[in-house]
């Protein structure tokens, strides 16, 4: 029997804190990785600007260093005016403060966004980068071809065991959004790799809601597709939903320190939508014959 690399996943603990925004406290530990997550934001509308302002305000208390973008970064065109109105102006205070943005592509994005320096894609539609003890894998889920699959497998294979592995891309593998829902075909191809190589958490957008899924096969999933767009009432909470919110725009803030991931999701109005601490799954290789 061939060696199996199946992993036995056990969650030491998962606990969530139900708290108001002013009650949740990030540990702000030295050397921790601090970032924000936004998805489906690039509308150029007032709501996007209001979320951006809220991010600036939230950064006073939680100084995140970078932002991961879950796709649909620039809706409706890719002219210089589009970049200005839908990215540079709303996030100017963050950009001026040295916050870096790392973009993934959505179905509304021109792939030539990869040349835009402020998206830090380094000319690639899929890429990887590392911050502290976290390795990020950024995929182009709108065009997952054989080359990208091979690349992902190799990158995950070559990664060490010690780091957190976080993947993000536009289309959610799990979602209770009525409009789109789970991308089952995509899931069939990449979830086996996530499981085999120990991906810890996955962030996506596309459905214009916020949803935290129950861990699936030992992996934490988030849908954050309402940082500009919103489909109010689109979330049909189901057996896979742990928590969901679809009545206002949101963004997420995350701190990873050691084996713990602290997260807080705020609404455009500054109210806490969700928060908690996730412990990194302990993975024990399955016994082989």
């Amino acid at each position, binding site marked *: 029997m061939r060696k199996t690399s199946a992993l036995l996943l056990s969650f030491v603990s998962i606990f969530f804190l139900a708290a108001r925004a002013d009650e949740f406290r990030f540990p702000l530990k030295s050397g921790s990785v601090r970032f924000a997550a936004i998805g489906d934001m690039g509308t150029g509308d007032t709501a996007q600007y209001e979320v951006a302002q809220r991010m600036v305000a939230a950064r006073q208390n939680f100084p995140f260093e970078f932002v991961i973008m879950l796709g649909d970064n620039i809706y409706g065109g890719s*002219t210089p005016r589009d970049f200005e109105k839908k990215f540079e102006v709303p996030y100017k205070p963050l950009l001026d403060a040295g916050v870096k943005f790392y973009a993934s592509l959505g179905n509304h994005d021109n792939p*030539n966004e990869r*040349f*835009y320096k402020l998206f830090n894609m380094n000319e690639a539609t899929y890429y990887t980068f590392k911050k502290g003890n976290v390795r990020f894998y950024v995929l182009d889920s709108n065009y997952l071809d054989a080359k990208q699959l091979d690349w992902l497998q190799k990158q995950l294979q070559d990664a060490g065991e010690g780091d957190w592995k976080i993947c993000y891309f536009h289309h959610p593998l799990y979602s209770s959004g009525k409009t789109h829902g789970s*991308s089952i075909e995509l899931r069939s*191809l990449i979830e086996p790799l996530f499981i085999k190589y120990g991906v810890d958490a996955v962030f996506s957008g596309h459905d214009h809601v916020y949803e935290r899924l129950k861990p699936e096969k030992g992996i934490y999933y988030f849908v954050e597709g309402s940082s500009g767009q919103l489909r109010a009432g689109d979330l049909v909470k189901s057996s896979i939903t742990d928590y969901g919110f679809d009545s206002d725009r949101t963004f997420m803030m995350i701190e990873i320190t050691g084996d713990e991931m602290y997260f807080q999701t705020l609404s455009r109005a500054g109210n806490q939508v969700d928060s908690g601490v996730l412990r990194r799954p302990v993975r024990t290789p399955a016994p082989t014959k």
Partner: protein
Amino acid sequence: MQTKRRLRHASQAILLAAVLLLARAAIASGQNAPPTSPKEEAKNAEEFKEFLDRVQAYVNLHKTIASSLPALKPTALPEMIKAHEQALGRKIREARPHAKRGDMFSEKSQAAFRRAVRDEFRGLQGRLARKTIQQGEPLKEVHVRVNEPYADSLPFTTVPPTLLLRFPKLPDQVAYRIVGRDLILLDVEANLVIDSIHEIFPPAI
């Protein structure tokens, strides 16, 4: 309501299990295409070869023209990106003034592409592929023209990944895209439609 939801989840689970089996077989065998018979594979390889030769000739032209332009490096100036995209597209159009449908997708290769699409859209797998396209915001009542730019305001319909595994791999400069029921070949950097196959996809995707 609860029962309906459970039924929906159960049917999704069955579909997923079927696709997982296919995908795992492809990944485990180290191949990137769903399994086909050796005879079929040989036929596809022959029919796709002509297409790939033509694509390679196009990519050579693309590279020659791109090398005559200032190299595009990551820039904080979106106008530089747009200017490069437009200049490259314009020069390629000028170099191929008579470009028309079928230049890349030869008759022979079209048959292979149509066969691949037909196989993809069969049965359980077909339902998933349709769902992927529907989730990827299909473009209806939109037609694009060969040798014209892909309209800047249009989204890119998600191409089912399992369909991509059936198609021949492309050089980085070009990509398959779906517009309505048409399959198009796009020069990604120039944002230029190079070729298309009309109504290759089944109705109501």
